């Protein structure tokens, strides 16, 4: 690993590390437990194809539990640079740029990603294209004060950024970029600036899209057109390791606050819960704007190292079973125990932090926090962690929050963010409620342990499983993007992530009815579901149909379970397969994976890693894979970039060609967004045995001569924090369900095994790993019913030639001029002719 972080900066109050790889660079932005929760990370991961944004390459949680976001490093001038340059920016350009930025922002808003402090520094200008940086990263109230001029007042006051707060920033951005030229623009544009700059969110254009329209209308042809840039992404081999390192290196810089246990109850009287919630990370409590929340103080936070007993979680009265259900269903919540931060000591009112930590640590749940304060200053996180405690009045702990229409922002997705906000922001003259659920992490664990195989058992029987599907955010788009993701769909959705069918499943008890953004926004009030989550949980009622399908399985030409049986027929066809790695079709772009890849299509392979559940898959309404069997792989499918509907039904005889003609209910009906990277979508069981979907973008960087790459994926229920061994040797990072470990080995035969928490072998596979190939090794199944197995894929075309062929050292060959001579030229010609037709093979990487 010759990659070394070349620079380390502070950005939005976060640490940002730039890592230079051979052909590209990435920025790793490191948060703390309380900044981005897993669902938000997921949302970020799924945003990589957003046009007009600096793409997210990865967003994950380090082994130490700290979230980080990896974005492409863009080395292009920003709008700020242009404005500061001698030439400046013409008003035609300013308006064109701002319009494009607004449209790009709108795309992001549709996916629940907001900026918060959009400024000219965040807008890259790449010829006539723009790309916005920092999308969705301002979550923890970490906006540095120097950005204040771009930040909407309600965000300064502590609200979560929203479409309208970004509209405010857009107005400011336009104003700033016009500078003196503002005199030149039509009056409608000036009005737009005023309108957008209103202190009252409702008084602004309601969306960035509307902002763009108004701007466009006002300008007619006079503006110059700018387009959203599509910045290709590359995922380096070592990215995960490098990110891990970057995170570890910043560890000491940012104090961590955390708590092991938190408890929150929710008063059913004061909250209406409409949404099905199945992912703790994503619970969002929407409050009716007229309702009042009473926040009850609870001193239940166990935080050993927080000496001040003031620390507390704030608790909403709640239905216990509701919370339990949620936590049972959640499998993202593994971050429970985190060391409490020392920094809490000097705070006499660490409630916010404690609460934040609770949530952050719990990874979910909600807390109703309220902050008082007149100070609108923002400090960056580091400062505020130490310094703001004096601004938190003890009374916080018992806060009555009146949800007045304009002031409540209840986007508590992931609590952590909120919590961080609470911990770090000085909140202005606003009553603010942050509602989150917390849950009893410690005790819950046991419960989950018990339920962990029950649920799976049910579901196993039942659900013909999800195959394709990427979560989709905010009722619109979504995609797969980066790898190593735990995009488990797992009984559904995540905060504003999916728009799947309703579940009748357990989680559906949990509801909320709070507009995710501003409660004050009437338009959003009316349709909270659009922004919040819908759920794609497999229905409990599905089991029966699925069960009835079971017999069919055995009749199906492709049998289900025993690999031997299943594959026997295939083996006869296999010679080619065995020699020919399963490589997605090549595209032009594939020819040069080291370079930026820009593609309009994505080669997607769908891997069925759930035992005993054949399904029919419909893409855009048409039958695409019928009776899709476990342990098999469908694809590659080159999906044009963009959105696609994917519906999964229980496999049946002679399935209808169109999903419209299916009379049964879809197990899963999702919209996925295809990005330009080859991606494996794997349906598998999560740690608890519930169905899940993980997406992995394949690492197709070129290998050196003699090398092979293997991507080992833990997709097994019950393996816990597994360990990968290669030829009996343990590899470093523990691998939890949904994660992958990439290893470069010398080509040849190797034994790859997965060990569970206890060091017992989950499954082992002897593989011949071919030089110049990527072999993906997905350990699937469940330890509970001994259904462990392995699914592998091979991607070829990554090889390099030996650096040289040294075949002489003595000079015995009297190489006179005649020895090669004319013959060489002739030979060359012949060789070229011969190989002409083969040149096309040259660098086919077989992948997009």
């Amino acid at each position, binding site marked *: 690993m010759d990659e070394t972080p070349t620079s380390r900066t502070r950005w939005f109050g976060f640490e940002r590390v730039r890592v230079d790889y051979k052909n590209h660079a990435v920025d790793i932005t490191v948060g703390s437990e309380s900044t981005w929760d897993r669902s938000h990370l997921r949302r970020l991961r799924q945003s990589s194809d957003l046009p007009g944004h600096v793409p997210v390459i990865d967003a994950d949680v380090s082994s130490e539990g700290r979230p980080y976001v990896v974005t492409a490093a863009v080395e292009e001038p920003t709008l700020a640079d242009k404005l500061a340059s001698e030439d400046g920016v013409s008003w035609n350009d300013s308006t064109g740029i701002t319009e494009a930025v607004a449209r790009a922002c709108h795309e992001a808003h549709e996916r629940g990603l907001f900026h918060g402090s959009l400024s000219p520094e965040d807008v890259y200008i790449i010829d006539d294209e723009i790309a916005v940086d920092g999308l969705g990263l301002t979550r923890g109230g970490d906006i540095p004060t120097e950005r204040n001029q771009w930040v909407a007042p309600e965000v300064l006051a502590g609200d979560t950024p929203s479409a309208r707060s970004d509209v405010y920033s857009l107005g400011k951005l336009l104003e700033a970029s016009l500078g003196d030229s503002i005199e030149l623009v039509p009056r409608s544009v000036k009005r737009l600036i005023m309108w957008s700059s209103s202190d009252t969110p409702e008084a602004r254009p309601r969306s960035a899209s509307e902002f763009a329209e108004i701007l466009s209308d006002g300008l007619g042809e006079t503006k110059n057109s700018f387009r959203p840039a599509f910045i290709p992404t590359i995922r380096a081999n070592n990215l995960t390791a490098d990110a891990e390192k970057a995170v570890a290196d910043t560890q000491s810089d940012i104090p961590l606050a955390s708590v092991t246990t938190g408890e929150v109850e929710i008063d059913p009287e004061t909250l209406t819960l409409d949404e099905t919630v199945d992912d703790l990370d994503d619970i969002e409590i929407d409050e009716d704007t007229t309702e009042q929340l009473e926040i009850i103080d609870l001193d239940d936070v166990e935080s050993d190292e927080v000496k001040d007993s003031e620390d507390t979680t704030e608790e909403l009265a709640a239905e216990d079973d509701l919370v339990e259900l949620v936590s049972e269903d959640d499998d993202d919540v593994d971050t429970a125990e985190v060391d409490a931060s020392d920094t809490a000591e000097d705070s006499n009112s660490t409630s916010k932090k404690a609460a934040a930590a609770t949530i952050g640590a719990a990874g979910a749940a909600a807390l109703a926090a309220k902050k008082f304060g007149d100070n609108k200053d923002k400090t960056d996180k580091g400062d505020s962690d130490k310094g703001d405690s004096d601004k938190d009045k003890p009374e916080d702990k018992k806060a009555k929050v009146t949800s007045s229409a304009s002031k409540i922002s209840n986007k508590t997705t992931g609590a952590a963010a909120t919590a961080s906000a609470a911990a770090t922001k000085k909140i202005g003259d606003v009553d603010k409620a942050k509602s989150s659920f917390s849950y009893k992490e410690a005790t819950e664990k046991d419960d989950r342990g018990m339920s962990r195989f029950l649920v799976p058992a049910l579901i196993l029987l039942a659900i013909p499983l999800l195959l394709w599907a990427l979560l989709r955010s905010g009722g619109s788009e979504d995609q797969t993007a980066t790898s190593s993701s735990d995009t488990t769909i797992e009984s559904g959705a995540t905060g504003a992530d999916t728009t799947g069918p309703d579940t009748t499943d357990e989680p559906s008890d949990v509801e909320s009815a709070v507009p995710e953004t501003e409660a004050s926004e009437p338009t959003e009030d009316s349709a909270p579901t659009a922004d919040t989550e819908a759920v794609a949980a497999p229905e409990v009622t599905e089991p029966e149909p699925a069960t009835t399908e079971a017999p069919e399985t055995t009749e199906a030409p492709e049998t289900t379970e025993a690999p031997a049986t299943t594959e026997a027929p295939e083996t006869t066809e*296999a010679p080619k397969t065995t020699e020919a790695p399963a490589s997605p079709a090549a595209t032009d772009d594939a020819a040069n994976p080291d370079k930026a890849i820009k593609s309009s299509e994505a080669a997607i392979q769908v891997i069925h890693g759930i035992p005993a559940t054949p399904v029919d898959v419909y893409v855009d309404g048409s039958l695409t894979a019928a009776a899709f069997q476990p342990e098999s792989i469908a694809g*590659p499918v080159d999906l044009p970039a963009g959105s696609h509907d994917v519906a999964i039904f229980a496999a049946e005889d002679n399935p209808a060609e169109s999903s419209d003609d299916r009379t049964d209910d879809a197990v899963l009906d999702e919209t996925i967004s295809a990005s330009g990277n080859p991606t494996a979508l794997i349906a598998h069981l999560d740690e608890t045995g519930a169905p899940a979907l993980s997406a992995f973008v394949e690492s197709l960087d070129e290998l050196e001569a003699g090398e092979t790459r293997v991507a080992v994926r833990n997709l097994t229920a019950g393996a816990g924090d597994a360990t990968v061994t290669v030829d009996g040797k343990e590899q470093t990072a523990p691998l939890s369900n949904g994660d992958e470990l990439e290893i470069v080995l010398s080509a040849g035969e190797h034994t790859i095994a997965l060990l569970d928490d206890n060091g017992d072998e989950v499954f082992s596979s002897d593989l011949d790993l071919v030089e110049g190939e990527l072999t993906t090794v997905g350990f699937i199944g469940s330890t509970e019913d001994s259904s462990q197995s392995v699914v592998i894929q091979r991607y070829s075309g990554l090889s390099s030639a030996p650096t040289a*062929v040294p*075949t002489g050292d003595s000079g015995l060959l009297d190489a006179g001029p005649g020895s090669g001579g004319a013959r060489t030229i002739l030979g060359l010609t012949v060789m070229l002719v011969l*190989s002409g037709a083969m040149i096309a093979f040259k660098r*086919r990487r077989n992948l997009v």
Partner: protein
Amino acid sequence: MNRKLLSGTFGLLATVGMVAAAGTSGAVVSGDSDTPKLQIDYGSTVPIRSGNPLDVQPSKGPRPVSIRVGDLDLEASVIPVGVDEEKQLDVPSADLVGWYQYSPTPGNAGATVLAAHVDYGGEQGAFFNLHQLEIGELFEVELEDGTVKSYEVTANSTYNKVDLPDDELFRKDGKPVLQLVTCGGTFDPEERSYEANVVVSAVPV
């Protein structure tokens, strides 16, 4: 490969299936000059294949064990070799020929690479006379299963080492070809190295 298309929509599928075959497995194997990009009609069923290691694992043919080049009065043992620490092809000692073990076995798609020294440690190497091999001449390679494959020389080229056509020489797909590689050209006494590589290409006959 498993292309069990169960939906019964074989009309549409025929095309897709073929293309898919090329795109997934045939791509690397076939001698086609270009593999059509997989085009999916959504109304069609995508190819489905097994992910079981038994099906997916590579199958290697018998490796070469010796080479006989009558015209050069050459008969040498062939051993599998890889790369050294500098990722240079790890050519064996003077009297042996190395089969680059990451290249295909003889007869399989791609370029099988056999490399040997022209000289080594003051001795003539197995391929000392390789540069004399002429187009049209025949030679034989014996495989570990006892079969003997005959080859006909189609080219004998000398490349400056920096200009070695790696992509063709180490091609992993396309028509089967055998590449015999050694050193040639001017010897640099200071570097103790030749400046060129002699590459003899041959095809099975």
